C-alpha cells in the first residue's frame, strides 16, 4: 500500500468537486449529482491506486479506468485535470461547440480517457476485453470499471458480468456507484436493481460493500480486490447523489441540471469551507 494521507485526499476530492460545479455551471449543462457521488472513489483511484502517468496517457502498461456511467464525465474530466492530464482551462470548453471536452467521455480527443462511453451498459464488456487482452499478454494491468446503480438495469451488464467471472478476470475491479437514484426516482421504485451485492456474488464476483465517501474504506476495498485470485471483484459503494453540496444531496432533480448563479455561488462557498 502506498503512503496514505487521508487529509490530502480529502483536499483533492474537494478541488475536484469545485471543478465539477464549475464545469456544469459554465456549460449550463451536465450531470452534477452522479458526478459528485463518485468523486471520492475517483480521487482514490487516480491519486492513490492506479498506475498512471499524466505525461504518458497512452502507456500500454498503465492501469485502465472505464467510466461506464458516462454521464458522470464531469467528475472524470475534473479528476484528469487535477492529475495534470490536461490544462485546467480545457474544462471551460466542457460541452461547448468549440471545446475539446464532449458531453460524454471521448477517448479520441481527451488524454487520460481510456474509453468512449455514454450509451449505458457497455463499459463492463469493454473492461472485460481490456482485461482479457492484458492477461493474454501477461501484463500486470488492473482494469477499473465504474457502473451506476441505475445503469445495471441494462441487460448487457449481466452478460458482461457472466463473462468477467467465466474468464476469471481477477485483474478487473467493478465499482457500483450506489447512490440510490436514477432520473425517474429512487432505484427501488423505478426498476429495482437490488440486491446488488447478492447479484454480483451469484454471478461469481468477490464482493465488498463500503461507504463510498470513506477514504479508508475505499482504499482497503481496492487493496482487498488486488489480493483476490481467479475472480473479479465488485465493490458496492454506498454513496450520496450530489455529495458535498447540501441542496443537491439525495435530490433526484440534480441528476442532469445546471445551477443558476445563486446556486452556483452557494455550492462553491460550501465547498470552500471544507
Amino acid at each position, binding site marked *: 500500500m502506498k503512503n496514505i494521507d487521508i487529509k490530502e485526499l480529502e483536499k483533492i476530492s474537494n478541488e475536484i468537486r469545485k471543478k465539477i460545479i464549475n464545469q456544469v455551471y459554465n456549460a449550463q449543462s451536465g450531470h452534477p449529482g452522479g458526478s459528485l457521488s463518485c468523486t471520492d472513489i475517483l480521487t482514490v483511484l487516480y491519486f492513490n491506486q492506479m498506475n498512471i502517468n499524466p505525461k504518458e496517457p497512452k502507456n*500500454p502498461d498503465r492501469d485502465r479506468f472505464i467510466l461506464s456511467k458516462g454521464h458522470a464525465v464531469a467528475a472524470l474530466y475534473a479528476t484528469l485535470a487535477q492529475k495534470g492530464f490536461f490544462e485546467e482551462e480545457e474544462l471551460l470548453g466542457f460541452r461547448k461547440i468549440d471545446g475539446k471536452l464532449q458531453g460524454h467521455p*471521448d*477517448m*479520441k480527443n481527451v488524454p487520460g480517457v*481510456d*474509453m*468512449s*462511453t*455514454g*450509451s449505458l*451498459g*457497455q*463499459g463492463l*464488456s*469493454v*473492461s*472485460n*476485453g*481490456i*482485461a*482479457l*487482452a*492484458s492477461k*493474454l499478454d501477461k501484463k500486470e494491468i488492473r482494469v477499473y470499471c465504474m457502473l451506476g446503480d441505475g445503469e445495471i438495469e441494462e*441487460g*448487457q451488464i449481466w*452478460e*458482461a458480468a*457472466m*463473462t468477467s467471472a*467465466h*474468464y476469471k478476470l481477477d485483474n478487473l475491479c467493478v465499482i457500483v456507484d450506489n447512490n440510490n437514484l436514477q432520473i425517474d426516482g429512487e432505484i427501488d421504485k423505478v426498476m429495482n436493481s437490488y440486491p446488488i451485492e447478492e447479484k454480483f456474488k451469484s454471478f461469481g464476483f468477490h464482493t465488498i460493500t463500503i461507504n463510498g465517501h470513506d477514504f479508508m474504506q475505499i482504499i482497503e476495498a481496492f487493496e482487498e480486490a488486488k489480493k483476490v485470485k481467479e475472480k473479479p471483484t465488485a465493490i458496492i459503494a454506498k454513496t450520496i447523489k450530489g455529495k458535498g453540496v447540501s441542496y443537491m444531496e439525495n435530490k433526484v432533480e440534480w441528476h442532469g441540471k445546471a445551477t443558476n448563479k445563486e446556486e452556483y455561488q452557494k455550492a462553491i462557498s460550501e465547498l470552500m469551507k471544507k
Partner: protein
Amino acid sequence: MLNYKIYYINNKDRKENKSIMEEKVKIATRQSYGEELANLGKENENIVVLDADLSTATKTNIFAKKFPNRFFDMGIAEQDMLSTAAGFAAYGKIPYVSTFAVFAAGRAYDQIRNSICYPNLNVKICATHSGITVGEDGATHQMLEDIAMMRVLPNMKVFSPSDDVQTRWIIREVSKIEGPVYVRLCRLASPKIYSENETFEIGKAKQIGDGIDATVISTGITTNEAINAKKQLEKEGIFIRILDMHTIKPIDEETIIRCAKETKKIITIEDHSTLGGLGSSVCEVLSEKYPKKVVRMGIKNKFGKSGKAEELMKYFKITTQDIIEEVKKI
C-alpha cells in the same frame, strides 16, 4: 447455378486433392473466411477471435482449434461480444468478431455504433448468414438490412465479397485497415468466380466485361448469377458488363459514373433489401453526379421466409433468369 457439383472443401482437401480446384468448385464465403482467418492468425499474433456460440457455423472454429488461447467464445450474448471486442481493440489487439449477420448488425447495433465506430476502434466484424440464402431458418435469421445499417455509420467500412478468392483477399486486407470494418458473408456454397491470382483493390469495383447494353452492379452471392446472365445474353447478341462491388463503402463513384455514361442501362442486384443497400448506394451516387435511371433488384420491403436457398432466390427474383429478363426490358 444448380448444375454445379458441390464440394465442401477444407485446407486438407486443398493440399491433397488439387484436382478438385480444377473443376467448378462451390465454397461458401464463410468457409473461405474461416480458413483464411486461421492462416492469418499464424502470421499475426495480434489477432484475436470472438464468437457467440456459433463458431461451427461461422467457421471461426478453424481458428479456435489452431489458436485456442486467442479464441474467445462469448456465449449467446452478442451485445457483450461486440463491446468486448471494442475493449480488445482499445487495448491494441485486432479482434475479428463473428456471428450471424442479423445478430451482429441488428442485435448489437448500438454497441457497434457507440463502442466501436464512435471511437474508431479496430474491430473486424465478419458476419455470416446474410441474406435470404440462409434458407430454411427463415425470416428471423435472414439479415436483409445489414448493409443499410452498417454503411450509415461514420468510420465504418463495408465489404461484401462474392466468392472464395475475393473473401480470402478481403479477410487479409481488412487486417491492414486501422478502424472498424463490416464484412458480409454467406452461408450458401457458391461457385468460385476468380482465379487464385486475381487482384482486387479496396474501394475499386471489379469490372467483368465491357458490354454496353447494360451494367449490372452486384455484390456478394448474386454476382455469380450476373455472370451467368452475361454469358447467356451474349449468345443472344446482348452484351453487358458487371461491376462486382466487393466494397460497398467507400463506394467506387468513379467506376459507377463511368459505366453509367458508357452503358444503356444500370441494374443493381443484391441479396439484401432494396432499401438502403447496394442499389441505394448506387442511386445516391448517380442522382448527385450523373442522373440516370437505376433498376434495383433485391428484396422489396419484405421479410424473408423458409425454403431452400435456390428456391428463395427464385421467389425473391434474384436469379440469372431474373437478371436476363430485366436486361431485356426496354
